[in-house]
């Protein structure tokens, strides 16, 4: 089929050039069959060392208790909850790309959806460990986090936002994992048929469940994918909404605010896209996927970051205005303390990284520059981490009673958990790109030129 068939879409092509389906299979499954480059091992060594630091921290934490962190009254929530909210936020990009952009028929998502979904899973794993370890005795967590029947006859409290959070994050992780696995099944079957060693053949045969590419199956499969996307879309919005309830339902100045749910969701998408952008640019370069993950995709991601970044900036303005307009002296003090208090430098970092620097994306030259996209995405991640730091630590450290004011000084173990979570995340990402197809083969094959019938009249319920 010739490339002229693409004219009917009047869209920018999803992939560059005219690759054939067979060459796509070859290119995407290549990392699985070739010995990794030296850079991969260097990356694994670095992330593995960070993970090791995290493992040592957690071991010491389980032995000694959460007292090794810098938390104390009145800052009872420190890096643990900051990192939890940060990682859950990052996890939002994957489902947004795979579900919301799927429903909106954004075909450019094809190249990055699989990748972003995997990052969602890894980010939520990183987030969950913080909640688990900050309970103090995580081996008992199942008893008091889940409605589990014990000899005490005590049930969890369904009125608490923290309990809603347990349900939201667990549902989100499970649904993301199911979504990801269902998307993988056809690719696993392709890998099964390409397998050259017995070991690979066995593993992929079991994992692909016996998928036969039958259209009688594709019919249900496509419907299931649509249903899951439909459910995942409100789910992804509900998860960070419920995370924001952890704060908004309380009466702490700086937390007790009705704007929190949309503000948190916008921030989550913002930071999630930044993280996807960072990892994407590296992977694209490392595996020569430039023609699959095109510059057009990266530019569109930058545009979403510009949009959500401006939404977050607007939320900051609204919050500050309402703090002044409310006439509540505690609220007003908290917002003055954000900017002028002892942690004022963090507000400066926040405003410059989250509000000012992303405005550079208005320039097409910046949007289409790999280096600029990469650096700005890092800044966005730093800024979003500081946003959670300000909301949690800076709000708490000066509460209603000046006699209980206290500075929060993180210890080496606070940083150990943070660095360890990055180590866990990047180790999982590196293993993922080596052992599984990081781009959905069956999906990208369906959007290359000539992949669909030319008489495009009867595909009423396609996806």
């Amino acid at each position, binding site marked *: 089929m010739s490339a002229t068939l693409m004219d009917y879409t009047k869209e920018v092509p999803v992939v560059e050039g005219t690759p054939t389906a067979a060459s796509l299979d070859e290119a995407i499954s290549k990392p699985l069959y070739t010995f990794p480059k030296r850079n991969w091992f260097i990356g694994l060594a670095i992330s593995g060392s960070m993970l090791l630091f995290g493992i040592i921290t957690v071991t010491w934490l389980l032995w000694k208790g959460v007292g090794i962190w810098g938390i104390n009254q009145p800052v009872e929530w420190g890096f643990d909850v900051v990192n939890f909210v940060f990682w859950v936020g990052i996890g939002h990009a994957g489902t947004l790309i795979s579900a919301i952009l799927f429903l909106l028929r954004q075909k450019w998502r094809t190249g990055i959806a699989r990748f972003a979904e995997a990052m969602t899973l890894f980010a939520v794993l990183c987030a969950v460990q913080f909640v688990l370890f900050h309970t103090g005795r995580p081996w008992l967590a199942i008893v008091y986090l889940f409605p589990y029947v014990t000899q005490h006859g005590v049930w969890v409290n369904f009125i608490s936002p923290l309990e809603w959070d347990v349900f939201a994050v667990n549902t989100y992780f499970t649904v993301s994992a199911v979504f990801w696995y269902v998307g993988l099944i056809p690719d696993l079957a392709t890998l099964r048929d390409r397998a050259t060693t017995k070991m690979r053949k066995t593993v992929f045969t079991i994992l692909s469940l016996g998928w036969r590419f039958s259209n009688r199956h594709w019919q249900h499969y496509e419907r299931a994918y649509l249903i899951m996307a439909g459910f995942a879309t409100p789910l992804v919005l509900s998860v960070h909404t419920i995370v924001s309830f952890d704060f908004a339902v309380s009466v702490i100045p700086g937390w007790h605010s009705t704007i929190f749910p949309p503000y948190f969701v916008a921030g989550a998408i913002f930071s999630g896209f930044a993280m996807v952008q960072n990892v994407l640019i590296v992977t694209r370069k490392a595996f020569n996927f430039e023609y699959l993950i095109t510059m057009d995709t990266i530019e569109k991601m930058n545009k979403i970051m510009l949009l959500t970044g401006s939404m977050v900036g607007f939320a900051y303005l609204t919050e500050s205005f309402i703090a002044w307009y409310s006439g509540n002296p505690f609220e007003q003090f908290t917002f003055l303390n954000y900017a002028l208090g002892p942690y004022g430098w963090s507000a400066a970092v926040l405003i410059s990284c989250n509000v000012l620097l992303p405005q550079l994306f208005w320039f097409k030259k910046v949007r289409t520059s790999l280096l600029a996209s990469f650096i700005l995405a890092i800044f966005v991640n730093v800024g979003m981490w500081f946003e959670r730091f300000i909301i949690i630590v800076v709000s708490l450290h000066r509460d209603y009673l000046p006699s209980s004011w206290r500075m929060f000084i993180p210890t080496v173990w606070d940083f150990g958990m943070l660095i360890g979570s990055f180590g866990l995340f990047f180790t999982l990402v590196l293993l993922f790109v080596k052992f599984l197809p990081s781009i959905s083969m069956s999906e990208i094959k369906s959007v290359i030129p000539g992949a669909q*019938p030319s008489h495009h009249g009867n595909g009423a319920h396609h996806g």
Partner: protein
Amino acid sequence: MANSLYSIVATFESPDTIIKAAKAVRDAGYKKFDVHTPFPVHGMDKAMSLPETKLGFVTLAAAILGAVGMISFASWVAAVDYPLVIGGKPYWSWPAFVPVTYEIAVLASVVLTVVIMIVFFFKFPNISHPLHDTPYMKKVSSDKFGVSIQAQDELFNEKKVRELLQSLGGNVDAVYYSDEFINFKPQLFEPKFLLLLAGIAMASSAGGYLLWNKILFLPPYDWMMEQQKVKPQMVSNFYSDKFAMRQPVEGTVARGYIPYPYKDKPDDAGKYLVNPLLPTKQVLELGKKKFLTFCSPCHGNFGQGDSRLRGQFPNPPSLHSDKVRGWPDGNIYHVITNGQNVMPSYQYQVSREERWAIILYIRTLQRALNAKESDLQ
């Protein structure tokens, strides 16, 4: 493999030709045929005349199941089995159950849809289908589009099928299977396997029960039982007198303490103290309960001084004497509070309100046992 024919297959190069081929096979009247494509091809369902998928009903049922189940469970926990007042809200604060209900509805619908699709719609996991591991499957899993017409079809005639597929421009091949292979059925319900499943279920639930209900309460996991804090009656090496329990600081007043200024002055008590309670039914019932508990062992159930103690303790005089009947309430209050002769003080056992209620009950007894003629009418 020496063997029976499973199906005649043909591969095509483009999506246009496979749509055409599917329509032709359908129009030829074949029922047991299938199309295999590396990705879903638009318009194929129509070309194959497949009915609309019923998967959406599964999702609807699962969502309703999840939502109703969760909100009922949360309501039962919070309002019936473990009611707690939280933030002054009612036990059944149903708006607070909406987030968890929503999450479980999403969880149930997604997980059940996928599981039911895989198990009942696809009949998976199934890794022993005749098409597996054939050159045909390896082609359609990569970039070719294939049609397969099964030998079991009523209209099946190998020559005719080959001709039809060839005329459509396909690359025709045949797929065989060995009878032994296709007749192999894993014995899912053989006793050994079921026993294994039951064993795993029992071991995991017993393990979970032991871990969370027993082991975590045994040493060394019970270190919270031994805490470095002082408890009553313990020895303390910190204080010079070795007592862990301390006396309150001089001049300390207990919460709710009201001083009693008429100690040793029963007449003043009778003069200045006034019963704050009215003889309502509620007050009299309280007074009766407390009288029967604290007073009746010595004074008798009707206050006649007929002790139940069989001489182990001296019998008190009757409460129906003219003296007691003539006392103001304050005098009786004084006796209960401070004791009299061998009667000890009851101020720590009987609260102030209860003392006044007892007095009203005693007045009722006195009137009942010394009723006037006018009372009887």
